[in-house]
């Protein structure tokens, strides 16, 4: 089974492809993407509406989850159904330090991310040997095993999980302020994910990943140390869900195994990456935005309330069948000139 880029779009025209600056910060597309993220956050801040802020928090959360998954899925070509395992394990670990050790949110975020990365390193060393669907299956297995394990794991509160005392929010200026703080942190995380995504994509490391995605055996022969680079990609992509998980559970005030390890959420994240265009940086963000808003709209609309899942499923099917490169991938393929602007 060959791992290839799903977003295989035959170029429309072979001529007149603009050259793109080597350094990512000189690219129009980099600033466009940052502008998108800036706008998404600014909407909530300007409006000062709590509902919009919450909606944007969820949106940015999925955008960064999708973007971090994209490093593995889009750049490296490994389909992981277990991305959420790092959200769960990292989040649990970070949250453990907040609730049981009384740490502040900031170091806990880092710890959550690091724990996720270390676990990714250990898992990655073994399962990244598997290719294609076997890898995908193994990630499902790991997700389920992790969920069942945490539900039995005493220090993490077993099946009822952990929670924090409400007074904890006082050190962040009260509960209302803590929500804003969480939002700002989420926003910053999204920026960081975008910058890291661009950095990796334009680096030597990223080029190695892309070559692994295109043809791992050929890449090996060209001297790409595939085992090392794909493990590194796995470790990097796992860091962010760890951080995001910690933040999300901190904001919620509690965590339970059933919320932390949802296969459904993993798959939805893949859908977002696909929707926007895997392997592109802007794609996962737009994909997350679209999917999340669509779902949220369907969920609260009287007309589709009961059919939201079916409608979302139909949309997904149409995209997979007819626009496999995702929105951004399709635009890039269709209008070569847009490659300067959208990446």
């Amino acid at each position, binding site marked *: 089974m060959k791992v290839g880029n799903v977003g295989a779009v035959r170029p429309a025209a072979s001529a007149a492809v603009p050259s793109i600056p080597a350094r990512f910060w000189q690219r129009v597309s980099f600033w466009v993407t940052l502008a998108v993220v800036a706008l998404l956050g600014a909407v909530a801040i300007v409006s000062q509406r709590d509902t919009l802020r919450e909606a944007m928090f969820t949106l940015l959360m999925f955008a960064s989850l999708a973007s971090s998954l994209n490093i593995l899925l889009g750049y490296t070509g490994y389909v992981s159904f277990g991305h959420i395992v790092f959200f769960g394990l990292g989040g649990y670990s970070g949250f453990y330090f907040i609730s049981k050790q009384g740490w502040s949110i900031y170091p806990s975020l880092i710890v959550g991310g690091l724990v996720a990365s270390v676990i990714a390193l250990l898992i990655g060393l073994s399962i990244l040997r598997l290719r294609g669907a076997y890898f995908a299956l193994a990630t499902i297995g790991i997700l389920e095993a992790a969920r069942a394990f945490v539900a039995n794991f005493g220090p993490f509160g077993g*099946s009822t999980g952990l929670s924090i005392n409400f007074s904890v929010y006082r050190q962040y200026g009260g509960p209302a302020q803590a929500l804003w703080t969480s939002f700002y942190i989420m926003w910053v995380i999204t920026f960081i994910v975008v910058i890291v995504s661009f950095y990796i994509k334009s680096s030597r490391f990223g080029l190695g990943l892309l070559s692994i995605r295109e043809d791992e055996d050929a890449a090996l022969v060209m001297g790409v140390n595939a085992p090392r680079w794909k493990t590194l990609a796995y470790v990097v992509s796992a860091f962010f869900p760890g951080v995001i998980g910690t933040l999300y559970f901190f904001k919620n005030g509690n965590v339970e195994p059933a919320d932390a390890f949802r296969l459904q959420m993993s798959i939805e994240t893949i859908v977002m990456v696909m929707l926007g265009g895997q392997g592109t940086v802007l794609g996962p963000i737009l994909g997350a*935005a679209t999917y999340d*808003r*669509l779902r949220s709209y369907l969920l609260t609309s009287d007309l589709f309330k009961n059919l939201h899942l079916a409608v979302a499923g139909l949309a997904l099917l149409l995209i997979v069948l007819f626009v496999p490169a995702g929105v951004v991938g399709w635009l890039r393929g269709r*209008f070569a000139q847009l490659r300067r602007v959208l990446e």
Partner: protein
Amino acid sequence: MRKIAVLGLVLLVVSLTIVACGGAPAATQPGAAPAAGQAAAKTGGEKTVTIGFTTSQTGSANLESGRQTNGFKLWLDEINAKGGLKLADGTTLKFASKSYDDESKKDRVQELYTKLVNDDKADFLISPYSSGLADAVAVIAEQYGRVMITAGASSDSTHDKGYSLVYMSYTPASRYLTGALDLLAKLDPNAKKVAIINEKDKFSTDVVTAAKAYAEGKGYQIVTFEGYDTGATDFAPYINKIPAGVDAVIGGGHFADGSTFARQLLEKGIKAKFIALLVAPPEPKFAELGDAALGVIGPSQWEPLAKYSAEGAKAAGVEYYGPKLEDFVTEYKGKYTEEPSYHAAGGYAAGLLLQKAIETAGSTDTQKVKAALDKMDLMTFFGRTKFDTSEKTHGLQLGHDMVYIQWQKGADGKLTKQVVWPEAGKSASALYPAR
């Protein structure tokens, strides 16, 4: 070249607008009723109070949650039909509600409550059904400073987190099965071996943790202590761990799993003398299990057979408030053509308690209503209500008590629900041994 770049940017802006607006329209279109109510706020001394909550229209808790919503809607219709609530200052309050489907899942429920508070301008909140969801939204109520009455949620742990605006209308989980153990002790002083098998959610875990400690304190031997996942359908592995010669099997979780558990207990021929399960038995639908329901005991927050009345209130030295128990039962049956379960009664009571608190406060101001709730000590058709006001476990229910029901065969051979505990309120003696 440049044109294309511009085109790209335009496309981008358009897509972003869509994204941003995707949030906005959904968020700015609250139900028509509350919006109108807000507009009419200051005219003619009439005001509309919006109460927000979510219902589990789908998902594992949809049965219980639906009943709770039914009960609440009955209260809402009744108070409005009576022309609303007259406050001391002459203002008439009408009540409106706004609700969404939470799918019995926690991941969107916080967002929905945030929306209820901010977009739908809910003045007060009722919790969603189940301790897990209620626990999740308690944060939101607290963060946005809204009083929330929890119904269908009884986890003690929600109230040890320092909240000050969350009030529990149910008897807390820690007291769900302790009464059953008291009953067992009375029925059979020689009973020794107790098997505990429960759902591993917050509520059931709180229940059995307390029950286990209580049982051990009373000298019972816990021979099995196992938890199953929410949504389990195959209980054979757990039932197989119940040793022969067990006296009592207690546990369960919610309706779906509890009734299946009861059915499989029968299929596997477990000869327990005493079976007490959470949540499921008091539901009228439990009777559909037939023989598997026979003899099963369930803790109930409330029963149509319960005997709360103005006289009782007087005896206890507290005020009686709201409709008579019989009236509630009749009205409910009239509207929904079924016996009210305790979930339905809980939904009604949540509205009623809020009504009383607003009336006492003479205002819809959060702090004043909170003060009224803190002081509240009264009896309704649902039983006694008094809240813990200590800082550590604020809002925990102290006044309300459980009743225990058992499914017994009536004279006509049909299954009927009898209240068997407490002694004072019982409608029949417990069937023992159950099997």
